[in-house]
């Protein structure tokens, strides 16, 4: 029988998934699809069939095989996420979905996200994307999962519980509150495209994560 993975290994796999999905939503760089294919191949060996979102993962892997050329990717990225006649068609930022930019609320929300990162001990560096960008938020979750994996490994129950609480809060107050709307917007705009495949798998993954993290906290005795 396939050996049951332990929670440290599961957390490490989740870390890798967040990181890969975050990269997929950054502006495309040279060799991106090759790197994503390599990452997906590696992650496939990490017991992914034990995750509820696996059917969506299979669809993503299939899309990855037929991913557009890098030039096409770059054009599509700009068209969907970066600019356009009336601005981006599907802005990949939390503030766009939750605030009215004209009222100055966007800046407040972005500042709150930045504050959230600092409270978690993170400082966004090496990225030109705003703090409320999907890729940045996915990277933050990747960082939390890395901490979780280390805490499981060290058998530090309190630390594990604390990290899970941080993940739960971040998902429920940030990523999961708007990513579904973003994915739905991409679905309606990029009907057969690569970014539809990416946002759909990430949406499924985030839904799974919200449920899994809360259930795990419950199992550990959190109220």
């Amino acid at each position, binding site marked *: *029988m*396939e050996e*049951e*993975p*332990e*929670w440290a290994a599961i957390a490490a796999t989740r870390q890798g998934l967040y990181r890969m999905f975050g990269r997929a939503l950054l502006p495309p760089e040279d060799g991106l699809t090759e790197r994503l294919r390599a990452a997906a191949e590696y992650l496939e060996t990490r*017991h992914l*069939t*034990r*995750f*509820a*979102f*696996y*059917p*969506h993962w*299979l669809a993503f892997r299939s899309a990855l095989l037929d991913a557009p050329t890098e030039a096409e990717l770059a054009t599509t990225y700009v068209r969907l996420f970066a600019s356009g006649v009336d601005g981006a068609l599907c802005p990949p930022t939390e503030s766009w979905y939750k605030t009215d930019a004209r009222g100055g609320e966007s800046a407040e929300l972005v500042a709150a996200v930045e504050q959230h990162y600092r409270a978690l001990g993170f400082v966004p560096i090496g990225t030109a994307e705003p703090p409320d960008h999907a890729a940045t938020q996915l990277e933050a979750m990747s960082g939390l999962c890395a901490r979780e994996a280390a805490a499981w490994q060290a058998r530090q129950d309190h630390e594990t519980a604390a990290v899970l609480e941080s993940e739960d809060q971040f998902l429920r107050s940030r990523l999961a509150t708007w990513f579904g709307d973003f994915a739905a917007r991409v679905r309606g705009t990029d009907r057969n495209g690569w970014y539809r495949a990416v946002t759909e798998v990430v*949406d*499924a993954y985030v*839904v*799974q994560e919200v*449920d*899994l993290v*809360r*259930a*795990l906290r*419950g*199992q*550990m005795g959190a109220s």
Partner: protein
Amino acid sequence: MTIAVLMCGDGVQVEDREFLAGSAVQVIDGLCRDPKAVTALGEKMEGLVLVVHADEFAPADVQAQIRAAGLDPLGVPMLDAAEYDGDLEGLRVAVAGSVARAEAFPGSAPAHAKPVFPSRLTRRSLFMIPEPAYIAAPAIDPMTCAAGDGCTACVGVCPEKAYEWVEGRIVYDKDRCEPCGRCVTTCPTGAISNPAATPRALAAQIEAMAVAADGSIGVAFRCGRAEARPLEGGWQVVEVPCTGMIIAPWALASLILGAAQVTVLPCSTTGCDRGLDAAAEDAVGFARAALEACGVAADRVALAPSLVVHEPLPAVPVDDPFGPRSAARVYAGLQTAAGTDIARITGDGATLGIVTIDQATCTMCTMCTQMCPTGALTGGYVDDGSLAISFDPGDCTACDQCVGVCPEVERGAIAVDHRVDFLALAAGRVELNRSETHTCERCGQPVAPTAMMSRIGDILGDEPALMDQLTRLCLACRGAS
């Protein structure tokens, strides 16, 4: 559609293997202990039915193998091999039903999967948190949900308080939810779905079992959390998330689809552990009343299984008999099957209703029509300029939302009688109330229905000046003056 049926061969006798060799069932030794055979089938199948030993397999392992085979675990019916020990004919019929159910699986969305940790402790789980398996949970389609009109039907029936109405939308807490399906069968618009027990899949399963059986079968709706036990005397299990979700039309629809008898088996011998026994009792009670009214033996539907002694009723084609708002069609089908022509059946489990409006106390505010999730109640101006409220009993699900929103309910302005009224159903849409409208002196637009003006006048009896101001001009002209 290719549906594979895999059965764990542990404990299966040689003669039984010979019998099964000629069937669609593939017997695989040690399947419960090592479910890799599921994945080995790979792309050769589009669906799967498993016959396993419930106390020997690890759900998370089996689900992983099902996913690896490219299938959705929430769409794989599982039969307990122990339940059919020595009853190969029963197994054959159950497999036919499960295959039909798997074929009708509509697919699930990420929102439908809820992780649950095993309650059974294993030696391994004593030292670590075990891995969760996933069960099917309800999800809401916001496009068809009527919360925007104020509907709170799901909020009212959920025993776990998993639903909350917040500013025109339903907030669903999956953590709280212990999927019982009450919300699914209560939702007036069919906006809530649980892919593990869809109307189409249930109907397909029952119909297939009735066709596959050599004689009469009884359908036993059994709670998904109940321990599997062999049922004697021609009964076949149809698993549902909780028997509290059963409604009278489901019991009757099963009879119309070919089952000779129907029973409801809660999760334990002492009843439903969510306290939903009363809901199941209401459903069974109303189904029995309907049968009796149609001159059919009421004991075809019962709370406990006895021997299956009846012949099936004549099969009657009914479109989507388990679907939302199918009740009127099912009752009409029952009448056809029974060859009777009756007037009405009354009781708490009706799931159909007749709305009555007291013309003396209704102010024609039309909040009931705005609230009505199914459009059974509608309001609008008619040719002579008056405002009318009309009602179509065929669209009413007896959800009582109209009663909840009526500001004059304490004065008896509106009521819903939970009954199946064939005369009313045949009559179709009828006008319940009408009121002339008071028009604005300045612009001629409606100010309010006369009935409402009259009520406001009663309330403002000692303030004639204010009343005069309110009645002469519409809101827009009052603001302009």
